[in-house]
């Protein structure tokens, strides 16, 4: 046998002895720092927005000094982005499934109007009205989810339609009448619950801010540590593969949209705390603002990739720019211009990071 090994029996096998004998392996070369960064970012999608957030905080801190870099001003930014952060959490869930939710702001306003009008028009106790607001928010979300999952309609179209429907219903039902802050404080203070504050030195945390942070942390846990959360990612990445792997795609999608509706209702309640009154004209741009936070936060609009913490950083970046630029006294248009640049930058970075897998 040994003889056979060294002396190929067949003529055409004679060249075999010259061929490679080591075990097959991937080609390895030393990674450049840039490639290593690409890998780290691929594993931690919230890093990019976090870095941008820290840089912009330092930048405005240097430019403006203590006017900006104080506990009060920094917590003020949190207050100003609380609504966007909560709506952004709802948006994140839907975007992770490769969908988009354009009716978030309308659901938020509708829920807040129901909480207010049920109390003041029909005289229901505030807790019941609040539950009704949540029920309506959840119901609208459920209908969205049903149309997307069962009827297989594109999320963009479904929520575009729902946005118009809910907003029109909101104006018709409320007759565009505002319920004043002072009336709410006197008769149904529970509606303004999230306007309450906790002070620590110069820092001011409203209950709305605390609710937003808790919501994002809980959802971050659910999305990364539970089976349901991983299913959401799986559906966004490849719904067919998820289905074959045993994920109940339709059911999970409906749950995602319903949960997103409920979160929007929460945003509606927090909104009353923030502006004091119940105003049917509030939150007109909440959908765009939430999508902006999600995109700057590094969550892929193609689904299945990104971290909800990134969304929070994205919302904060927008908040930092808005307050910082106002304190510098620039024309408000510069804020929009810079945010536009950030959006495109964020998506470009996302595309670059994706190449790591390809």
């Amino acid at each position, binding site marked *: 046998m040994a003889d056979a090994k060294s002396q190929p029996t067949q003529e055409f096998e004679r060249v075999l002895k010259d061929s490679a004998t080591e075990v097959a392996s991937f080609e390895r070369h030393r990674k450049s720092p840039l490639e290593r960064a690409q890998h780290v970012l691929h594993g931690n999608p919230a890093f990019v927005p976090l870095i941008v957030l820290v840089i912009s905080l330092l930048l405005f801190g240097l430019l403006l000094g203590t006017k900006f870099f104080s506990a009060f001003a920094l917590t003020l930014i949190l207050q100003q982005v609380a609504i966007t952060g909560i709506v952004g959490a709802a948006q994140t869930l839907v975007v992770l499934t490769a969908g988009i939710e354009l009716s978030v702001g309308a659901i938020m306003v509708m829920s807040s109007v129901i909480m207010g009008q049920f109390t003041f028009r029909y005289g229901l106790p505030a807790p019941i009205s609040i539950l009704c607001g949540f029920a309506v928010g959840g119901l609208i979300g459920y209908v969205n989810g049903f149309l997307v999952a069962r009827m297989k309609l594109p999320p963009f179209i479904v929520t575009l339609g729902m946005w118009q429907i809910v907003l029109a219903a909101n104006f*018709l039902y409320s007759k565009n009448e505002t319920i004043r802050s*002072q009336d709410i404080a006197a008769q149904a203070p529970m509606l303004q619950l999230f306007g309450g504050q906790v002070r620590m030195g110069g820092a001011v945390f409203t209950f709305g801010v605390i609710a937003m942070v808790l919501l994002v942390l809980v959802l971050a846990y659910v999305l990364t540590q539970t089976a349901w959360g991983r299913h959401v990612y799986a559906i966004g990445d490849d719904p067919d593969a998820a289905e074959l792997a045993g994920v109940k795609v339709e059911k999970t999608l409906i749950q995602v949209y319903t949960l997103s509706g409920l979160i929007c209702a929460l945003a509606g309640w927090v909104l009353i705390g923030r502006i004091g009154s119940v105003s049917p004209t509030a939150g007109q741009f909440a959908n765009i603002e939430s999508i902006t936070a999600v995109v700057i936060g590094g969550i892929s609009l193609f689904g299945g990739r990104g971290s909800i913490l990134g969304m929070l950083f994205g919302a904060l970046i927008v908040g930092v720019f808005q307050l910082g630029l106002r304190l510098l006294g620039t024309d408000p248009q510069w804020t929009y211009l810079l945010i536009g640049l950030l959006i495109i930058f964020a998506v470009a970075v996302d595309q670059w990071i994706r190449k790591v897998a390809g």
Partner: protein
Amino acid sequence: MTFGTLRGALMAAAAFGAMTAGAQAADVNACLITKTDTNPFFVKMKEGALAKAEELGVGLKTYAGKIEGDNESQVQAIETCVADGAKGILLVPTDSKGIVESVKKARDAGILVIALDTPLDPADAADATFATDNFEAGRLIGEWAKATLGDGAADARIAFLDLLPAQPTVDVLRDQGFMTGFGIDTKNVAVIGDEDDSRIVGHDVTNGNEEGGRTAMENLLQQDPMVNLVYTINEPAAAGAYEALKSVGREGDVTIVSVDGGCPGVKNVAEGVIGATSQQYPLIMASKGIEAIKEYADTGKLPEKTPGKEFTDTGVTLITDKPVEGVDSITSQEGLEKCWG
């Protein structure tokens, strides 16, 4: 929901009834085209027009854009009115430049077109304009604020809560009117933000709602925590500003002034949230508009401008419970009887 829908249906039925009755009594038909059907300002306007139309036997049809800024629907409405053989159109333009061409076609067809609340651009593109003098509205609250602050006016710290970054006409007129009344050099009176008076803390935009009012106030307080006078474009923005002041415990020592005269705003004057507000009268704009169309149809006479102004002034009144000498005002109690929304 059902209650609201039912009421809406009843109102529509009543309007329809009035319309047909009017059309039988006289051959004068008119159209009212507003920005939206949901803003209380336009709801009140519609109410005034319908009541006057019924009284004068004018057939009135009403139209509105779907949302603020919906020029397309207003163009369609004008075309419908022309086809319908209306004698006059009352129009609240949502895009005062964009609608001019359609207005011209209607006027060429022999229809009297009156702009309500917002002038067209150019203003003489319409036969007449019935509107609030927004500069005067701003001037009144400016004068009141100056008198109220007394000696403190010389070193007041003033925050300006405006409407939109694009500075629409109403925004500029109210803002610069306030400055004129308060005694601030406005420099170019057509531009907000070119002033160099050291009493100005800054300008920020609010979108005319509570949310924007609160955020803008927070931003300006951050710029200068010693703000003690706040000009606001309208009462929802004022309500938002008040919430921001309340959250830092400054609501007691800051004076807020505003413009509009909506019912929630007037109630806020009664409760001291807003120091003074300039009230405008959408109902009068509409009812005077109907009268003008009727007169034009009967006699061919065009409405007259208020002497010294480029439009017909439908009046503006200062509402405050702390009247000052030299500035005419009415109390919040009287204001509540005339408020809208």
